[in-house]
């Protein structure tokens, strides 16, 4: 399932004194199965752009094609598009409303008018994908869940619609390190095992470095960088100029390189850093022994 965005522009509060443009002529595409990270300072237009992908906004200027289908087309079935492109909002736990977890997760499939047994199966699968045991949680009161569990339940609610593409909007915000790790594991398995295409919006450079193969960087409503994650994070000065930062590991490696360590560009994880630094130091030792 592919996504194409062409020359998209968007203004808020058109016709009021508060009118302002948040997207300026944005174009990019996402191929089936990709894991794309979307980063940028707050108010750069990330969420607005993402909400075009599941047709919550219809383009007035520009085009959005979901699997070839133009969302602005009058005949476009927006409801189906929204099932195919799932969207998990920031702090999604606030959208929970049903008496029990099971019922809330079933909301999406129920809107698709599927038979009861199929809905139950979808709910069960979705819950398993996020690590909420079906039998334990399906009848539990949503208000009896912890924050992290609520968030997972909200994500399951979107997964139950069997989306081919998932837009995840800052879903690790406010979570403790373990909670973040758990959610990131879920996201990883959704990408690798379920083959879901993922657009991952985040303010955490570390999260994005972990899983994204490609990065889109936005600033002031424009995409200013689009490329493999390692390459984008190599553009340190440009990123810092717009208020972003490198993943913590990369910051350290960057400093070491300025101090004379010959390390390859684009190190993004702790394990990579350890092996590269170790290799460099052992190498140096070896060469010094010979000389």
């Amino acid at each position: 399932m592919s996504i194409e965005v062409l020359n998209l522009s968007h203004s808020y509060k058109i016709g009021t004194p508060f009118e302002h443009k948040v997207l300026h002529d944005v174009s990019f595409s996402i191929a089936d199965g990709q894991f794309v990270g979307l980063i940028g300072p707050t108010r750069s237009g990330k969420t607005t752009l993402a909400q075009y992908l599941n047709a919550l906004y219809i383009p007035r200027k520009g085009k959005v094609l979901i699997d070839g289908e133009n969302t602005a087309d009058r005949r476009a079935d927006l409801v189906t598009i929204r099932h195919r492109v799932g969207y998990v909002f920031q702090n999604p736990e606030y959208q929970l409303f049903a008496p029990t977890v099971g019922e809330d997760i079933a909301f999406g499939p129920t809107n698709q008018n599927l038979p009861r047994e199929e809905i139950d199966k979808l709910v069960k699968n979705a819950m398993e994908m996020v690590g909420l045991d079906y039998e334990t949680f399906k009848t539990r009161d949503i208000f009896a869940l912890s924050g992290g569990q609520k968030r997972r339940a909200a994500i399951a609610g979107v997964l139950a619609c069997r989306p081919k593409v998932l837009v995840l909007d800052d879903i690790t915000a406010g979570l403790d390190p373990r909670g973040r790790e758990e959610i990131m594991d879920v996201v990883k398995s959704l990408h690798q095992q379920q083959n879901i295409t993922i657009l991952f919006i985040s303010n955490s450079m570390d999260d994005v470095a972990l899983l994204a193969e490609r990065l889109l960087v936005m600033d002031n409503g424009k995409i200013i960088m689009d490329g493999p994650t390692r390459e984008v994070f190599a553009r340190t000065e440009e990123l810092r100029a717009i208020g972003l930062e490198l993943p913590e590991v990369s910051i350290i490696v960057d400093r070491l390189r300025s101090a004379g360590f010959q390390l390859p560009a684009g190190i993004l994880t702790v394990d990579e850093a350890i092996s590269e630094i170790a290799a460099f130091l052992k190498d140096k030792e070896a060469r010094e022994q010979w000389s």
Partner: protein
Amino acid sequence: MIEPQGCDNLEKTIETKNLSYAYRSGTDKEVRALRDVNMNVFKGEILAITGQNGSGKSTLARHFNGLLTPTGGEVLVKGLSTNDKNNIGTIRKIVGMVFQNPDNQLVSSVVEEDIAFGPENLGLPQAEIIDRVNWALHTLKLEDLRRESPHSLSAGQKQQVAIAGVLAMKPECIILDEPTAHLDPRGRREVLESAIRLNREEGITMVLLTHFMNEVIYCNRMIVMDGGTIKMEGTPKEVFHQGVKESQTIKDMGLDFPVASQLAAGLQEEGFTVSPDIIHNEELINNLCQLKS
């Protein structure tokens, strides 16, 4: 209890004695959020309180300015007990608080008016209010934004306004409850810098609740909470070092190590002589440079 190094004196701004707190106390839905907590906040320090969601850290923080009162035990702010309602007014002048969501803290539609809200509540004379507002704007570098509507500011800027609003009350201690949770990297950096500056230059005691390990390392001391009790306490070096030794402890409590510590530990395993208690990037880089030469 461990006392901080590098502080002028060991005066306790805040002290808890056998503090317990239960939600819906006395009913069958009672939830014990804090169990017999004994801790201090020393004057002049930056104290980090960490712990996974549900560990009780937010509940604990809300006892420091009397937003919550203990169901068992006592909380003293400069010797005044929060159990006595008459003390709460004074206590809130001593201990200010900044919350996670900037949108739900700001009262007014103009930045300088919102900052004045606190001093106005204190019944200060007009000239003094104006002085304090100017001072707070200046200290947090918000002068250019003074007549703006908070609505038009970024989340990071709004948080700075919230801090300015608390600062204008000239508290001795400011509690920051996960102030950077919803900010972008620049916003996080600016808020952390402000907190450190307020501590170092204005001498304000800071209590920082956070999940970000790269914020914790700038604190004098840290406390790790789990299940309503304090599980670990000490300087960040001490706590993380202990965590490394006991391998899983930190992770069991839902936390993580600073990246510099992780690299140090990994390189140690590879056989390099790396100091075991590294937590700052600087230390790691210096250490590695020494190994290189």
